């Protein structure tokens, strides 16, 4: 069977399967197990209401448990074993990682990414949101800045190869340098250390639209009166922006910042496509992929390091969610 038919078949089976499960299980509960009539109507209804949520939740819980909760444990256990997976070596993989120079470079780069990308994307997004607000063609501008969001990291990397390439006729940067009289084209992707920032900018380019859209909505949500009051008080546009508007959307800024932070910790595609991790550009996700299929023990150890990096924000997130529910 060709894959495309297999795909259609899967949709059919998956959708009817899901619908049938939900419908039949509810029917079974209402008609057979706890019918809401007869001598025990009241008790049966109460009982059905205890069971029903779990019918609704069951498939999702299975999927979540198997595909997200189990791997956290599974990865940790695997990371305590050697390459073949048979011999328990304790924290050996982690010790090897710490001793290796490549890992240290990846950690350093990752910290740079975590510092630079969310900050830059949020700042650009805030700037774009503020500038396009109330502009007659603001929506068109926003749409274009938002567009990279739809482009894959691989596609985006290719797009930026056209900017970074080391010839005067392909790379925009070199073309501009040439126009100012540079003699030799340079390969910005190979400049030690600074090449990281060129690669990071691709991520900034993708994420700015996301930040802009959300911050723009937050800016619109600011009560107009507070701005008008500030105008009456004689504040300049800059003062209004930094002292009236930004403090009021601080909560949203934090949300945007953390969301991009999480994304940065997942994305290996850009580094993989731009340099494959050469020239000192590895970050942890790409470093992990360099071990994938070769040394699962080492790969899971790197993955677990990423998990540890995420952990504090994850706990903060959960706390925040629980507070909101009260």
């Amino acid at each position: 069977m060709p894959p495309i038919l297999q795909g259609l078949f899967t949709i059919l089976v998956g959708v009817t399967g899901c619908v049938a499960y939900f419908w039949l299980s509810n029917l079974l509960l209402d008609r057979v197990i706890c019918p809401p009539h007869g001598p025990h109507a009241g008790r049966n209804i109460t009982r059905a209401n205890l069971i029903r949520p779990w019918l609704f939740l069951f498939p999702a819980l299975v999927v979540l448990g198997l595909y997200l909760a189990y791997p956290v444990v599974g990865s940790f256990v695997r990371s305590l074993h050697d390459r073949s997976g048979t011999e328990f070596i304790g924290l050996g993989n982690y010790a090897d990682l710490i001793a290796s120079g490549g890992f240290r470079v990846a950690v350093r780069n990752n910290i740079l990414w975590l510092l630079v990308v969310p900050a830059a994307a949020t700042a650009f997004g805030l700037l774009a949101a503020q500038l396009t607000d109330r502009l007659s063609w603001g929506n068109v501008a926003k749409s274009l800045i938002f567009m990279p969001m739809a482009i894959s990291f691989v596609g985006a990397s290719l797009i930026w190869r056209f900017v970074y390439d080391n010839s005067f006729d392909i790379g925009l940067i070199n073309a501009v340098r040439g126009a100012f009289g540079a003699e030799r084209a340079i390969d910005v992707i190979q400049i030690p250390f600074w090449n990281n920032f060129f690669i990071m900018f691709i991520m900034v380019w993708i994420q700015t639209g996301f930040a802009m859209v959300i911050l723009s909505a937050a800016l619109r949500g600011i009560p107009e009166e507070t701005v008008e009051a500030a105008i009456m008080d004689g504040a300049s546009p800059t003062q209004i922006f930094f002292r009236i508007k930004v403090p009021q959307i601080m909560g949203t800024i934090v949300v945007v910042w953390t969301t991009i932070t999480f994304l940065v910790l997942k994305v290996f595609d850009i580094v993989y496509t731009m340099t494959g991790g050469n020239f000192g550009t590895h970050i942890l996700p790409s470093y992990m992929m360099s071990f994938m299929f070769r040394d699962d023990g080492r790969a899971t150890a790197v993955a677990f390091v990423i998990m540890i990096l995420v952990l504090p924000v994850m706990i903060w997130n959960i706390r925040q969610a629980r507070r909101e529910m009260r």
Partner: protein
Amino acid sequence: MHSIAGRKSGLQWAVHLSVVALVLLWLIPTLGLLVSSVRDRDQIAETGWWLAPLPVEMTFRIRAAPDDARASGDGFVIAGNVLDDPAQARWFPDGAGTVTAFGTRGAAPTEHAPGDTAELRTGGTLSVARDGAFTITAPDALTRPVSIFFEARVPPRVTLDNYATVLTSDGMDRAFLNTLTVAVPATVIPILIAAFAAYALAWMDFRGRGVLIAAVVGLLVVPLQLALVPLLNLHNAVGIGQSFLGIWLAHTGFGMPLAIYLLRNYMVGLPRDIIESARVDGATDFQIFTRIILPLSFPALAAFAIFQFLWVWNDLLVAKVFLPSGSDAQVMTVKIADDLIGSRGGDWGILAAAAFVSIAVPLVVFFTLQRYLVRGLLAGSVK
């Protein structure tokens, strides 16, 4: 605020200009890709894409065959027009064109100005006129072809050749279908499962609901990397292995927390009165879900569908791990990153066309459904 008195128009201009600059910075790289993808590969090598609408000065080489020589005076002469040569006829449709320089050696193809007469190394002379007419004179009979190098101004050529090449000989057509095959079920199935769970978490009262919601929020940020090795081992152990079924399941799992989170956030914001009213009207939970909640949650469902579709379509990591590595099952991102960049590294037209094939569908989805995407983003992040 447009009506506030005494505003400076200069400031307004500055705003306009900064936005223009910002938009250009965001648009130009993509534009470069699009333009490059429809240029001729030889022209790409000659000038930057930003010069694409301008004629390109390109260097050509033709060979004047000795058979065409005829005796003239005390030697031999070959006459003809360099622009008529079949090797580059595509550049000069009616033999029209302008020669800007010519030469006799590959090392210096533009040594002489048109109309000049150049000495041939083998003895004899070559001259090429501005309209392409050339004359070779030789003292003795010619035995080997004479190479003529010339440079001519060529009008820009817009072509879909790159796309044709990518789609036929490079196998992007197969990769496109594979991507589609992965993306559609991996978008539809999680929505269905998540919608039911989200309803339970939003509108049903039961012990442990708070803990489950917190767990979903927590799982939202579990790094994908953590799941790769254990799940691949699991898939291998149960016989799914690296396959389409495996990647559908994986994407369903990885998309689930966001789906539940987004949909629950939206559903919990629906008016309580409406749901209670339906209950008073006699609807069961299942009926409330299918007849009230689902239709009303359409914006959130659409938003998540777009998210998940874009995410799956654009994914490289999960496809690399959960699909077999042969070209039969390669999706477009893998094809480009692992295959084309290696084998076609310097062929910018091909790379651009491939990239554009892969981003075309997301761009269409993005621009037609942007409204829902924005709404979904807001529902997920701003409270």
